């Protein structure tokens, strides 16, 4: 006999101001199965939860429906609440009368109340058919994978490793270090980026619990929390890592040349190369696109081979190929970082055709002592020191028309940093900054900005730049000073654009590979914007750093640490509880046709032979069988199954039909 308790939450005025909660409670009081019905101000509060628990005991309830917010918000809370007084948590259902009702039907109190009644009746009808379910258990592989070897990935791996767990860092470029290794100084302290990053890179490479997998890509992710099977593509380095000593001789005579990506193409590098002198591993790779040998092979010839001749260790291996291998992990951290927005979409900044209109990251390489100009701030076009520099903020940020609608968060500070650096290096150079707003919400950030203006004499102009054009050797920057209401025209030698941070171009594909969500811009989405900032909707996959959205170094490091804690909490368990809401096959009904087998994305369904008595004798036949620890509960098999023998626990055919019927019955 079903005895359902119904609890309608006002959520203060969130629901109560629109939905007549008392009327809803009254309307379902005599609905089939309902034994108790009431309403209360805050159901999720402690008194609210106590109220539910007391009602379960007093009224001998065996099922509970709470009508309140989204189950994505409080399903866990209420399941735990009923479990405390001995009720199976799966005998609980939620009706969403806030996000799906009161908040979207403001002012339509009558209709919203009617809708709430419907939603509650649907939930009651479903809960009447709920069954007691028990969580399952699955083992945990005590090893984590961090995807991306930038500062976030390195920090996260170090934190996990220092907690005593094995962790692999997967990095697609030949070296770990990420964007931070390209940056010269860090705000607001102006300490050298390499000086604080390289010790961490060394620590990661020498840590007994950390394994670096560089020049490799994530190919495929299968399995589930605690038990991921990750296929990794190790790209052909053309250098045997076990033989290479990292002496660098091979690079000295390489005739192949390519744009140096690390230095923002401001100079050339050799075809066999390490991206930068402090690279880790400090062993080169051959870029087959620019290597003369590989290029000649495409034309059926086979030339050069100088690097092999030079190498004293015999480590050059032209025949290496990409290798695929599968590793097992218990948890995955995505720390794939960001890319810089390409300003060439902006006609007003010259569509990227003026060599002396550069991005912030270009500037970082220009000002870096080991960069292409040995740290001298000069114009890329003629290597002359600029006497007037114009900086433009929000290039691609806060511009839904041509760029991104969001604020990239870091540009205000890095522009201020770069402005002070210019003034330091070239005290006679005048610096102007065009800005929309100055946003400095960080420790010592606003102080830094004020120093930039007051001590360093950088001229901030509030307004946008409408046009940049070349006139002789100079760039004429036209804009508006909105505070003075005047047009401004500055003849500059160098223009530095504060380009937005954007996701990696393949971030969506990456998210699909891993099975996590991403937003309209391609940033990975966290499970909750406030309360689950490092988790994703996929259990066992966490986020660190700018892959989730624009972040500066302190924020990336902080989030990396947070992700590491979540990973460690997961790996510290010997077994994981698994959701019991999985598919199950009623072997009595199953014909063993096997149509469901290829439909399962987790390969959880197999055909197995069972014995049964038929017509007085024992016969064997095949039926489908679901491996409940592999099944993730999508339900694809249930629709493929014609006889209804495959069913999804907690979302059974009978439960969904009951909901449909309950809704339709209320229509007359």
């Amino acid at each position, binding site marked *: 006999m079903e005895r359902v308790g119904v609890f309608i939450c006002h959520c203060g005025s969130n629901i109560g101001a629109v939905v007549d909660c008392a009327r809803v409670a009254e309307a379902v009081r005599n609905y089939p199965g309902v034994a108790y019905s009431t309403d209360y101000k805050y159901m999720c509060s402690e008194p609210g939860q106590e109220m539910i628990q007391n009602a379960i005991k007093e009224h001998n309830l065996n099922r509970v429906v709470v009508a309140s917010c989204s189950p994505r918000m409080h399903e866990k809370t209420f399941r735990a609440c009923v479990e405390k007084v001995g009720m199976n948590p799966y005998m609980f259902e939620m009706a969403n009368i806030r996000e799906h009702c009161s908040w979207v039907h403001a002012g339509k109190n009558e209709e919203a109340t009617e809708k709430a009644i419907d939603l509650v009746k649907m939930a009651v009808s479903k809960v009447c058919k709920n069954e007691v379910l028990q969580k399952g258990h699955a083992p945990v592989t005590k090893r984590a994978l961090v995807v991306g070897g930038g500062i976030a990935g390195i920090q996260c791996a170090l934190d996990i490793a220092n907690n005593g767990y094995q962790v692999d860092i997967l990095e697609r470029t030949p070296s770990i270090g990420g964007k931070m290794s390209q940056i010269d100084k860090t705000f607001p302290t102006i300490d050298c980026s390499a000086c604080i990053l390289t010790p961490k890179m060394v620590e990661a490479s020498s840590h007994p619990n950390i394994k670096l997998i560089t020049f490799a890509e994530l190919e495929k992710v299968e399995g589930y929390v605690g038990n991921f099977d990750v296929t990794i593509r190790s790209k052909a380095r053309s250098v045997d890592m076990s033989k290479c000593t990292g002496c660098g001789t091979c690079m000295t005579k390489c005739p192949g040349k390519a744009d140096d990506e690390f230095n923002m193409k401001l100079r050339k590098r050799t075809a066999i190369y390490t991206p930068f002198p402090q690279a880790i591993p400090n062993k080169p790779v051959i870029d087959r696109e620019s290597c003369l040998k590989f290029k000649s092979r495409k034309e059926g010839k086979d030339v050069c081979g100088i690097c092999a001749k030079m190498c004293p260790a015999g480590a050059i291996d032209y025949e290496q190929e990409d290798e695929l291998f599968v590793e097992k992990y218990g948890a995955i951290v995505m720390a794939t970082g960001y890319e810089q927005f390409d300003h060439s979409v902006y006609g007003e900044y010259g569509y990227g055709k003026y060599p002396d209109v550069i991005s912030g990251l270009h500037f970082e390489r220009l000002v870096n002592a080991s960069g292409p100009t040995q740290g001298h701030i000069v114009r890329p076009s003629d290597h002359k020191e600029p006497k007037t520099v114009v900086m433009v903020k929000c290039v691609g940020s806060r511009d839904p028309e041509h760029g991104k609608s969001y604020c990239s968060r870091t540009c205000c500070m890095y522009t201020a940093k770069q402005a002070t650096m210019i003034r330091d290096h070239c005290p006679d150079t005048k610096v102007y900054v065009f800005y929309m707003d100055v946003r400095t919400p960080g420790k010592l950030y606003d102080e830094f900005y004020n120093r930039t203006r007051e001590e360093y004499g950088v001229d901030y102009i509030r307004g946008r730049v409408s046009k940049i054009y070349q006139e002789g050797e100079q760039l004429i920057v036209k804009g508006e000073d909105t505070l003075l209401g005047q047009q401004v025209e500055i003849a500059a030698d160098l223009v530095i654009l504060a380009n937005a941070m954007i996701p990696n171009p393949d971030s969506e594909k990456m998210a699909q590979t891993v099975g996590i969500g991403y937003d309209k811009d391609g940033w990975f989405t966290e499970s909750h914007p406030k309360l689950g900032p490092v988790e994703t909707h996929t259990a066992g996959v966490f986020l660190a750093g700018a892959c989730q959205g624009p972040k500066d170094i302190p924020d990336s490091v902080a989030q990396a640490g947070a992700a590491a804690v979540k990973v460690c909490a997961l790996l510290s368990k010997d077994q994981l509880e698994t959701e019991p809401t999985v598919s199950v096959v009623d072997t009595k009904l199953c014909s*063993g046709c096997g149509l*469901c087998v290829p439909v399962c994305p987790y390969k959880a369904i197999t055909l197995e032979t069972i014995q049964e008595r038929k017509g007085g004798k024992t016969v064997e036949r095949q039926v489908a069988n679901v491996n409940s620890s592999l099944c993730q509960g999508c339900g694809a098999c249930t629709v493929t199954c014609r006889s209804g023998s495959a069913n999804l626990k907690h979302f059974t055919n*009978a439960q969904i039909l009951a909901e449909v019927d309950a809704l339709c019955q209320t229509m007359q």
Partner: protein
Amino acid sequence: MSNIQNEMRAVAKELLESGKATVVLGWEKGTMPYDSTPVMIRSAADVDKLIWDEYCLQNLSTYLIDFINTEDKVAIFAKGCDTRAYNRLVHDRRINPKNSIVIGVPCSGMKNPKVAAKTPEGAEVPMANACKECRYPNPVACDQKIGSDVTPWCTAKDFSDVEAIEAMDADAKAAFWKEQYSKCIRCYACRNICPACNCTNCIFDQSASGWCSKDVNASENQFYGVTRAFHVAGRCIECGQCEAVCPSDIPIMLMNKKFIKDIDTLFGNYEAGLVTEGTTPLNSYQVADPEEFM
């Protein structure tokens, strides 16, 4: 035709006498001239019951389901459509190909017994509906074959009847189907004869499951009709037996052919019952499938 009949009897006799088969499934003459009914022969002495005429319409493959757990070695005579049905059943693991022998019989099309019943004796009787559109008169796979292959009289699927319905307005369509399914008595003959409807437990026999009720009315009957068509979508081998056995003359193939037509246009031409493994259109997908739901 009588040559084939003689050959059938000879083959059956040889199989039974040699013990290669313990049962032979074929057709015998029924009570009416337009009636050729299935017969199960276990003794070589009975092989003369076997006949081959223009009313051997009924598909015998589905009977093999009953032999899946027996020791019998079953030989069946199979027309083109029967061999596709056989493949369908093997694909669905409902029959054991190891204990069956398929003797293919090329077929020139069977006559429509329903029309024959209303036609004066001696008058011309048209082909059965499915036979008119048959593209596989010859067996698509068999262990041995008798007779010689015939030239198919159709090469492409004919959807003109489906298109005629599609061209109606919504009210006319609804009225048409409501009228058709009002006639349904839910005898389930269409399901029982169908080689694709081969579940051990059909959902329409599980009224306690909540899926369906036993009510016989236009709505429930249409639910049955659409659901059955959906269950055989991508799997129907177009034998037309469902329609042939329907006592209420519901144009059931119009439903099945609608799915066949849409599958062909949406997901690429598909011929059911030609193979015994792999996926079917509805338990597979292509990333590049048509996108209408953006």
